[in-house]
Structures are given as structure tokens and as C-alpha cells.
């Protein structure tokens, strides 16, 4: 294996990474080809994090530049299919795609190339597709969001303690992209984190109807602040919200990237995904010829999610300790983010509602042992319940 990697490393910038990784590469690692198509490019936080993951995978498995073909800015239409089959045509053994809307096109390609593995992030149809070469993957980002929620809650507590706001005024504003499970699960976990330390916290959610509308996110943040929000968080991809918060002097929690560069005096921390574990795992499975998970979802324990460095200038005292404690609890399984005792829906517990039947019956599979088993049945988030304490401003 090492000889192959050395050969190919001669003409590229890849030198140091291939060398460092040459230790545990399999013999046929040099024969493999990996393709990935991104919804955006390096200028967009979500895609950038995937790119980092791919880069780390390359390093870890000692792949050369030629072995990884990256396609950027692939929209969620026939171009996704074109890109996927083009990657397959070029001899890729495994092909990744990172955006929700590309899933059906991936499946179309997967059907055409049964010998190639197709893995799709955020999607949910692999299991039901009947295609053995179709896979879904995602991270347990809700865990990281819960932790950032804790940081936010502590900040609210600080504001209450120093008399800036009253306990009743502890309102969080949340800038969401679209009202589906991925976002709902995200903001709920964030809220539960905040509430776990600041019990009076409430939250308002406003949607931008876009994944990356910088101005829209900034405007929604401003509106939430004008509406009384004392802290802002987001599940959308740009720095719009933090930038508006910086101007208004409102603490905020970001997503994907460290926001301290645009909001040095107001950003607390951000939740982020680390895709390297999955990409390494998936590509290694192909190299080894082992079977890949149809659904893959991992969190803190495996290093697939995390939070960026706390902005000491802004976070409440003692945040770091509390964060360490919560992270540990999540890792060892003693803390479940969607603990059904921590929230109610219309004043009732989720278990009660399920028992009542009706619309809630479908959640029966997810709830056991006192918590909602997020991302366990499928890799993509499935928690889409609207719990008490959170108001969606968009109806």
C-alpha cells in the first residue's frame, strides 16, 4: 500500500498527508475511487464542513488527489443525476451527495450502477428504496445543539442575575430554514439544552424559507430581537444572523462555523458537524469490501459533532465546566437530549399522547426508556413535534 501512495504523492500537494496516513492503508486502497457532489462549494459553511471531512478521510486512508473527485455546486435537479452518473462513469466506487434534494437523483443513479455504493447525507429513503447500494448518513447534531443550548441558557441566566432582563424575559429567537424534522429536531434540542439550565426560557422560531439567505437571516434575527428575543440561534447556513446580532449587541449561537469573526463581541459558540468519521468509515468499508450501514448516524461519542471554542469574552462564567459535564453525560449515555420528562406537548407528556393514540401513535416506535430515540431508526432527524415553550412565528 505504501508504495502506491508514495508514487502518486510525487506530483501533488498531497505529500505530507499521504505519508502520515500510509500506516494502516489496505493494499487495494490505491485502486479505489471516491466521488462526491456538494450542493455548494467552499464558500458555504455546510459544504465546507463536508469538504473538510473528505480531506481528513483522504489523509486517514492515504488516498491521492486523483482518487477523489469532488463536484461542487450541484443543484437539486437533473444535474444531480448527471453528476452522479458521471462520477460513476469515471470509475468511482463510492459516491457521496450532501444535500437533501439530491436524494431521489442519487437513487436513480444507484439503480443504474448497482456495483457502485451511493451514500446520501440528510436523506431518509435508503432503507425503503430497496437498493442495496444506497445509504443514508447524518450526524447527531442535536447533541451538539443541546450543548450549545446549555451555553445559551447559562448566558440567559447571567443576564437575569445581573438584572439586564427578568426571568420572564428570557426569550430566545431562532432563525430556521424550513419547518421539517431536521430543523425542528435541531431547535428543540437547542431549546431543551437552554431550558435545562434556565427553566424560564422560551423560544420563538421564524423561518427564512432558504438554506442560505444571508440578508433574510439577518432580517429575521433583527425582527426576533425587536420582538423581545434576548439571544439568537440559527439553523440556516450563513453568517447573516450573527452579523445582525453583533450590531444589536445580542448574544448568539451559530451553526457550522465559528462566528467570532463576524460577531466577535456577541457570538457564544457554534454547533458543528464533523463528517470525517463517516467518510473514513464508508470509504474504508469499500476498500475492505465490508458491508456499509444503510443508515449511519453518530454524535459526540464518536466525534462526529462538536461545538466550536467558547468565546470567553461573551459566555457566562463557568460555561466551560458545565459544557464538559454535559458532553460527558451525553457521551456516557446518562443524558438523553429528548428526555420525555423535560418537555410537554400541549401540557401533556409525549408518552401520554402516544397512549391516547391519534396522530401521535406514529411516534410509538421512537419512544422508549423515557426518551425519544432520535436518529436511531433512520439516520436523518425525525423529531418533528412542536413542544411547549416554543412558538413558531410562521404558521
Amino acid at each position: 500500500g505504501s508504495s502506491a501512495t508514495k508514487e502518486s504523492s510525487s506530483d501533488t500537494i498531497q505529500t505530507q498527508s499521504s505519508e502520515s496516513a500510509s500506516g494502516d492503508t489496505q493494499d487495494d486502497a490505491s485502486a479505489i475511487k471516491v466521488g462526491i457532489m456538494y450542493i455548494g462549494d467552499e464558500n458555504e459553511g455546510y459544504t465546507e464542513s463536508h469538504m473538510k471531512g473528505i480531506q481528513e478521510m483522504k489523509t486517514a486512508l492515504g488516498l491521492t488527489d486523483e482518487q477523489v473527485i469532488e463536484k461542487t455546486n450541484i443543484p437539486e435537479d437533473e444535474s444531480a443525476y448527471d453528476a452522479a452518473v458521471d462520477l460513476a462513469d469515471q470509475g468511482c466506487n463510492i459516491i457521496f451527495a450532501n444535500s437533501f434534494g439530491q436524494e431521489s437523483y442519487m437513487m436513480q443513479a444507484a439503480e443504474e450502477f448497482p456495483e457502485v455504493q451511493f451514500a446520501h447525507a440528510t436523506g431518509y429513503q435508503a432503507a425503503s428504496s430497496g437498493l442495496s447500494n444506497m445509504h443514508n448518513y447524518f450526524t447527531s447534531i442535536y447533541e451538539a445543539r443541546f450543548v450549545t443550548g446549555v451555553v445559551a441558557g447559562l448566558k440567559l441566566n447571567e443576564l437575569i442575575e445581573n438584572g439586564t432582563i427578568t426571568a420572564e424575559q428570557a426569550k430566545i429567537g431562532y432563525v430556521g430554514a424550513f419547518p421539517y424534522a431536521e430543523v425542528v429536531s435541531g431547535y428543540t434540542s437547542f431549546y431543551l439544552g437552554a431550558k435545562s439550565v434556565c427553566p424560564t426560557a422560551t423560544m420563538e422560531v421564524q423561518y427564512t424559507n432558504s438554506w442560505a439567505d444571508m440578508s433574510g437571516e439577518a432580517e429575521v434575527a433583527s425582527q426576533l430581537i425587536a420582538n423581545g428575543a434576548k439571544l439568537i440561534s440559527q439553523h440556516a447556513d450563513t453568517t447573516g444572523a450573527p452579523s445582525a446580532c453583533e450590531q444589536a449587541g445580542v448574544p448568539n449561537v451559530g451553526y457550522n462555523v465559528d462566528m467570532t469573526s463576524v460577531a466577535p463581541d456577541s457570538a457564544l459558540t457554534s454547533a458543528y458537524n464533523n463528517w470525517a468519521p463517516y467518510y473514513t468509515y464508508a470509504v474504508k468499508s469499500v476498500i475492505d469490501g465490508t458491508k456499509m450501514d444503510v443508515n449511519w448516524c453518530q454524535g459526540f461519542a464518536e466525534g462526529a459533532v462538536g461545538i466550536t471554542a467558547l468565546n470567553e469574552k461573551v459566555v457566562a462564567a463557568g460555561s466551560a465546566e458545565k459544557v464538559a459535564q454535559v458532553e460527558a453525560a451525553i457521551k456516557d449515555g446518562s443524558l438523553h437530549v429528548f428526555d420525555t420528562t423535560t418537555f410537554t406537548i400541549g401540557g401533556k407528556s409525549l408518552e401520554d399522547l402516544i397512549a391516547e393514540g391519534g396522530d401521535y401513535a406514529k411516534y410509538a416506535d421512537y419512544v422508549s426508556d423515557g426518551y425519544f430515540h432520535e436518529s436511531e431508526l433512520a439516520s436523518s432527524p425525525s423529531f418533528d413535534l412542536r413542544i411547549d415553550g416554543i412558538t413558531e412565528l410562521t404558521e
Partner: protein
Amino acid sequence: MDLLLTFIQKAIGQGIAILFGATGEIVTEKSGNLNLGIPGIMYMGGISGLMGAFFYEKNVANPIPLIGLFISFLMTFIVSALGGFIYSFLTITLRANQNVVGLALTTFGVGFGNFFGGSISKLAGGVGQISVKTTAAAFRASVPVLNKIPIIGDLLFSYGFLTYLAIIISLSMTYFLKHTRKGLNLRAVGEDPATADAAGINVTRYKYSATVMGAAIAGLGGLYFVMEYYGGTWSNNGFGDRGWLAIALVILALWNPNNAIWGSFLFGGLYILYIYLPGLTRATQELCKMLPYLVTIVVLIISSKRNKHESQPPSSLGKAYFREER
């Protein structure tokens, strides 16, 4: 109350970028050039101002806000003027079709903005990591003392200098067009270049100056957006379709920069209204986002029914001029 105040503030904030664009386009159109490249030029202006500030802050240990401000302002001015120059060269000297050149320039300009936006993003260490804090703070600095007055301070004095500059430029452009010889000559060029030519006006020079100047002014809209509105960062396509709205505003304003001022605030307000109207669903929000466009259409129709000589576009708008042509 807070909501209303924020709404007005933000409407103005949204409006100013459009106002720069519209004022620049009015000046341009007064010379008979319909520059559909303005949306692209605004991207070019935005990114070059940001780049100027970025490299300044990156290479200097203790950046001085005013210098950063000056550099970025100058960069924007030069690069957007350059965009205007490309347009002018092609349409005035080479007499190419204005619509095609404009559209191509918009493609080029948006590509230019996003390309370099991406590049400096990379240099800065990743997405959202561009920050020209020092310079942006200078752009965002509001009027001291006065901004502390409750309500009035928020409403009138909470903006950076570009906001006031936009209004000053619009007011002085109106004055320029109405009361000065050069303004009169410019209007003549836009109405009928052959006549202006026969009157001894250097048509080419006027067309060039107005178009280049108009582009430079419009480019400031991009700078405003990047610096004052976003606080010194970049997002690809982050400027959206505001450049097109700026062109629409020209008509709404009946080619009078003074009208563009309130028009831009109206557009700004309509642009974000959906966020402030309570009780909207996602679907109705989307309908609400149509408002700026629908309002433009309605105004277009109304103004076309009122067939006043003075509210018509410059009559040579869109046509190339060649002295020896008949």
C-alpha cells in the same frame, strides 16, 4: 413600538443599497444608456471594497479604521467605475447593443463577486471567517451623541455614513440635473444625442462620464451592503436581486433621484414586510415577498397611463449614437 421602529430602520437599511443603484442608473440613463449591468457592477463594487479592506487589515498590524474605510471606498469606486467603463467602451465606442452588454456584464460581475468572495473566504480561513472588523466598524459608526436620543436617534441617526451619503448623492444629483449646465447638457444627450452633438456637446464624453460615474455610484450600493449592512463579510449571491430592483426603482422614481429616496425606503420595507406581518404561513409569506415586484408593476402601469412628457424615459435610451449615421 420596538417592532415598528426596527422595521423602519431595517427598511431604510435595505433601501439604501437600492438607492445607490437607482441613483447611479438614473445618471446613466440620463445619458441614454440603459445599463442592465448595474446588478453585476454592484457585486463588483461590493467585493472589491471588501477585498481592499481585507488585505489592508491582513497586512497591517494595527489597522486604522479610517484608512481601511478610505481604501475600501476607493477600491469600490475604481472597480465599479471600471465596470461602467467596460460597458461604455462596448456600447458607446463599439456601439454594441446595450441590453446584451448589460446582461453579459451582470453575468460577469456576479461571477466576479462570487469568485473573489470565495477566494478571500479561503484566504481568511474558511466560510464566514472574512472579517474586516475594524473597517466595518468605521462604516457602521453612527452619528455620535445624536444617536442616543430615544426613538429619533434610532430612526434618524443610527446609520453609518454611507446611508447619509446615499441621500446626499441623490439630492445633489437632482440639483445637478435640474440646475446646472452640465446637467442640462447631460439630459440633452440622453434625449437626442444628434441634437446635443450639433449644439457642440461632446456626446461621447458625456455618455462615458455619466455611465462610469453612475456605475461608481451604484457600486457604492454593493459596498454599503457588504460593509454597513453585513458588517464586513461576504456571502455568495448575498446581494440577491437588489440590483434589478434598483433598475426598477428608476422607473418608479420617474428618473428623478429625489423620488428614488422614498421609493427605495418603500422597496426596502416591502422587501422585509413578510417578516413583520404576523400570522403569515410559509406559503403566504412567499406571496408577500412578491410585493416589491407587484408594486413596481402597478406603478409602471399607472405611470404609463399618465402620458406626461416629463415622466417619460430619456428618448434615446437604449440606442447607440453615431454621428454620421442617419
